[in-house]
């Protein structure tokens, strides 16, 4: 493992080049070459991210949302993985062209990651204090004592009671929620630019999930870091995300601001997801409209749009031709042949805002009528 070297220039101290974003992922493709064939795990992912922003990556299992993040972090074994095209630039520097040694500086120091399972991501044989301080010793050249002191501060920061005592305890003495707090403390130890959170609350109960989300938001406000939140839960992204990327079969099908995805969605898969979730109702129950069928195999992707076999609106062209990204001027894109067809977009599910905006429009109309 790389030791801290003083001649190394910390990338996160470097200014972001003019006209670039903190993180730019541009048509990234990564395929696994397996015995069964080529798995199109990441197939043309594009997005941008700036400091202080939260990107929500939503998709079902096998949609490539975790693999995309792991590709950025250089955590995919190559082979069987192979970059097939595109780029990912962090502060203008390509992450894909970095050496393993450079990547080790990036991991934990500039981009940190927390995982779904807080039970297995901590090493059971080391004390919590040592694990939290490890990154600081590695990247910042802290002494053992300094690292431990900072670990106490960090644990305090993430809301662990009695941090002086608890740094000397082992992971099994912590509950699931507390371990996830420790993971966040570890990830934030070196004050990273980007925090990638891979389903950090999926293994936790809702009341604990609410605590962890609140903590991540608090930490973001304090440190100004960006967050990439990978989740299958649209509720969690509604709570946290500024931008959202919806993935299906290794491809991003829609990307935009949270408002655009929830209130102006332009892809039938996003609609299907929203319609599949039972709403908290207090008057009448509305029936669910599930997406028919099963996700396709990433080895033998159907020709045309990968969602076409399950799409209720699919027509011939969808089965024959892979849709291009239809992008609006705000950068909202949708991989659907009909994303710019206003008549087609009327099929989108009703939202609280369409109801509200209709009401607002009606009121505005009434107002102008009165004035007239």
């Amino acid at each position, binding site marked *: 493992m790389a030791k801290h070297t003083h001649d190394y220039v910390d990338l996160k101290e470097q200014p972001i080049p003019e006209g670039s974003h903190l993180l730019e992922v541009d048509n990234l493709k990564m395929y696994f070459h397996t*015995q069964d064939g080529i*798995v199109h795990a990441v197939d043309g992912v594009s997005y941008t991210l700036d400091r202080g922003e939260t990107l929500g990556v939503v998709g079902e299992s096998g949609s490539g949302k975790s693999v995309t993040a792991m590709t950025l972090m250089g*955590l995919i*074994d190559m082979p*069987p993985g192979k970059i097939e095209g595109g780029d990912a630039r962090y502060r203008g520097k390509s992450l894909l062209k970095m050496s393993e040694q450079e990547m080790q500086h990036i991991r934990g120091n500039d981009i940190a990651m927390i995982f779904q399972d807080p039970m297995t991501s901590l*090493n059971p044989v080391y004390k919590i204090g040592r*694990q939290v301080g*490890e990154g600081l010793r590695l990247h910042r050249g802290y002494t053992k004592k300094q690292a431990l002191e900072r670990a106490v501060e960090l644990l305090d920061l993430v809301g662990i009671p009695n941090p002086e005592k608890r740094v000397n305890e082992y992971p099994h003495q912590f509950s699931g929620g507390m371990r996830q707090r420790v993971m966040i403390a570890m990830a934030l130890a070196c004050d990273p630019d980007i925090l990638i959170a891979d389903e950090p609350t999926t293994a936790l109960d809702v009341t604990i999930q609410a605590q962890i989300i609140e903590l991540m938001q608090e930490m973001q406000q304090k440190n100004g870091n960006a967050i990439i939140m990978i989740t299958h839960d649209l509720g969690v992204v509604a709570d946290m995300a500024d931008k959202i990327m919806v993935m299906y079969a290794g491809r991003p099908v829609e990307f935009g601001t949270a408002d655009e995805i929830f209130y102006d969605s332009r892809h039938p898969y996003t609609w299907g997801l929203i319609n599949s979730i039972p709403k908290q109702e207090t008057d009448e129950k509305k029936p669910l409209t599930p997406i028919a069928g099963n996700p396709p195999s990433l080895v033998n992707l159907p020709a045309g749009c990968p969602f076409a076999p399950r799409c209720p609106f699919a027509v011939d062209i969808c089965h024959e031709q892979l849709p291009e990204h239809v992008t609006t001027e705000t950068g909202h894109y949708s991989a659907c042949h009909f994303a710019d067809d206003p008549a087609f977009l009327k099929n989108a599910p009703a939202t609280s805002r369409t109801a509200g905006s209709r009401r607002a429009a009606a009121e505005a109309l009434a107002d102008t009528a009165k004035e007239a």
Partner: protein
Amino acid sequence: MIYPVHQQPGAAAHADAVAAEHGGAAVAGAKSRTLWGDAFNRLKKNKLAIAAVVWIIFVVIVAATADLWVPQTLGDPTATASDNMAGMSRLAPSLEHPFGTDTLGRDVLSRVIYGARISLVVGLVSTGISTLIGLVMGALAAYYGGIWDTIIMRLADMFLAFPYTLFVIMMIAVIGNGIQNVFIAIGILGWPQIARVFRSAILSVKENDYVDAARAMGASDVRIITRHIFPNSVASIVVYATMNIGGAILTESALSYLGMGVVPPDPSWGTLIQDGQQYLQTQPWLMILPGLAILSTVLAFTLLGDGLRDALDVKMKDA
């Protein structure tokens, strides 16, 4: 490595899982396969295991048909060359005697082939005995638990705590020499490992929801054991028993080497090595060639066991 962000947490495993999930989901149109059929197909891809199977089949055929051709072509394995013993003694390997001859002028290859009969029979029969006892004991311990489990497993621990070969020697000393007693001794002493493997296999299978599902349907104990628990835990026993055959062959050789197994003049791989060892300096083939027979056969059973373990692992498909 203790800092998770630096790790590569199972990236390869993840790729496999992605591949397996999608490979597994794509079932439409595929012909239905049974699990045993699947296992056989996986075993076929394992070159080492196939080589092992070929070797084992070869040894079995040669040993089984020995009476038909060995005495005629190579010579009787037990009868000494009474007419010209000095001239026939400890000849180097030649076309006529591929493995040479021993002190008494007997053809060594012939003795190795007849020795294979004994070794294979000892391996199979004693493993059969161990497996039978082990299955019953393991099943009792796992299914009924409580005091049964404690008694059986502590008994197994006691057996395992003794130096194995010493224990067999003691047993042979008590019940006497002879091939049947070798079966019994090795067979009886081999059960604790089988019992442990089977017990833990049952315990892990018992945790599966399909066992609870069967209970919830009102299935009887017998049905649960025979339809649900046994078919899913037997794979580990098949693997273990295969490897155990090699172990039993080794133990028999060790016993015969120590003069406690097969009674002369019957040949056994152990006695052949014992006979040959004093000529290691001058006629090394007398010891090395029977040694190679043991090595290759035991290795074949171990490799086959390894191959079976990979082939029968249902989890590899389910991940």
